[in-house]
């Protein structure tokens, strides 16, 4: 019999869902006890507890998503988040802040920096680190970006004239968190996607004649409207379907992730303006997604039945 009381390890393993514990729990416990015995410990180390909690939470939250899909979403989120941050910084980072509570002669019309520039600046740093392959440093920068996003959001609630609109901070924070799903290793894909996305956003800014120094909500009321973001998400989904049909799997996965990211932008846009419409949009996405997965699985079964894998018995 084992001489170590395994209760503290069993408690730490509760971070994992029961389905995971059923599959791996006893084997994992055995390995944890083997290691503890070799290191002369009779309880989990602090690092071990943190690692188990983090890994357990990751399995609970993301266990349903395969690793390649997670990496594609992280890559698409990095590129899109960076593009949105840069467009925000250029068009809304500096501008005259008009205080409607003051008379015209009392206004300070000097360009002022938006606190949202902190989150945008951290986004730029994080993206450069991603492109340089500094994965760990990029994750730290992204965590700082998310924290800054929340901080600026709170500050903007206290002083609405100083901070950017909530939709800006919410979007930048959500994307920073999405990038943390997985390390971004497809650096070229991230760079190309960021360049294309920035180009599209700039093109529409110029088309809608949005000048630099505009209020932070100008992009959301004139460019990233519910109609436009919905159309963009739909168009990219069609593109991902086409790439999947020509069997360019890696590209299709990334394009689908970009489409998913723009679907998130669409849902954020809907929800921040009207929660009920946002929930309706979410219901539509879930319904369409369920039908899509059903068709995909049926197609996969059909393909498997008619084209047996090479080497299969």
């Amino acid at each position: 019999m084992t001489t170590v009381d395994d209760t503290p390890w069993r408690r730490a393993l509760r971070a994992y869902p029961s389905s995971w514990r059923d599959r791996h729990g006893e084997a994992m416990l055995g390995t944890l006890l083997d290691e503890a015995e070799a290191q002369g410990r009779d309880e989990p180390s602090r690092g071990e507890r943190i690692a188990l909690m983090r890994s357990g939470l990751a399995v609970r939250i993301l266990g349903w998503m395969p690793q390649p899909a997670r990496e594609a979403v992280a890559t698409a989120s990095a590129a899109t988040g960076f593009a949105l941050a840069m467009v925000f910084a250029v068009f809304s980072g500096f501008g005259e802040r008009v205080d409607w509570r003051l008379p015209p002669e009392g206004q300070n019309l000097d360009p002022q920096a938006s606190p949202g520039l902190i989150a945008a600046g951290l986004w730029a740093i994080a993206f450069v680190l991603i492109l340089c392959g500094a994965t760990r440093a990029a994750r730290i920068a992204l965590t700082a970006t998310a924290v800054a996003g929340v901080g600026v959001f709170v500050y903007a609630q206290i002083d609405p004239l100083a901070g950017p609109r909530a939709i800006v901070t919410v979007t930048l924070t959500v994307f920073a968190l999405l990038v943390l799903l997985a390390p971004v290793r497809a650096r070229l894909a991230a760079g190309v996607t960021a360049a294309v996305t920035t180009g599209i956003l700039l093109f529409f800014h110029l088309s809608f004649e949005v000048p630099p120094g505009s209020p932070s909500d100008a992009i959301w009321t004139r460019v990233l409207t519910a109609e436009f973001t919905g159309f963009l998400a739909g168009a990219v989904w069609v593109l991902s379907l086409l790439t999947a049909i020509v069997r360019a799997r890696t590209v299709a996965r990334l394009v689908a992730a970009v489409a998913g990211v723009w679907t998130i932008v669409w849902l954020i846009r809907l929800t921040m303006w009207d929660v009920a419409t946002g929930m309706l949009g979410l219901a539509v996405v879930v319904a369409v997604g369920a039908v899509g997965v059903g068709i995909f699985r049926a197609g996969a079964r059909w393909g498997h039945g008619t084209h047996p894998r090479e080497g299969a018995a």
Partner: protein
Amino acid sequence: MTQEMREPTFLMLTALADGPKHGYALIEEVDRVSRGHVRLKVATLYAALDRLEKEGTIRIAREERVQGRVRRYVELTPDGVGLLAEEVARREVTVAEARRRLALRPAFGGAL
């Protein structure tokens, strides 16, 4: 496989190349193979084993109970052996190219 294999995965597959191993033996073997550079956490190990099992790269060979503890032995599948061989060949090409280019450097290389 079109994606580049990550170092911990390569080390794990290398550690399993000569036969099945249980969890702690695998951690020790990876530590040895990497000359002390990579020490896998148990949580990381099982997350990787779960992924590799789903991908069909490894499979459970057997389970034993030793001193009341479960020891699960895992081994490479034929697909896993092929994957490791491909990765080794890919790395050998890269290493050979690095050696060739280093040999081309002038004798005073790096002095400028």
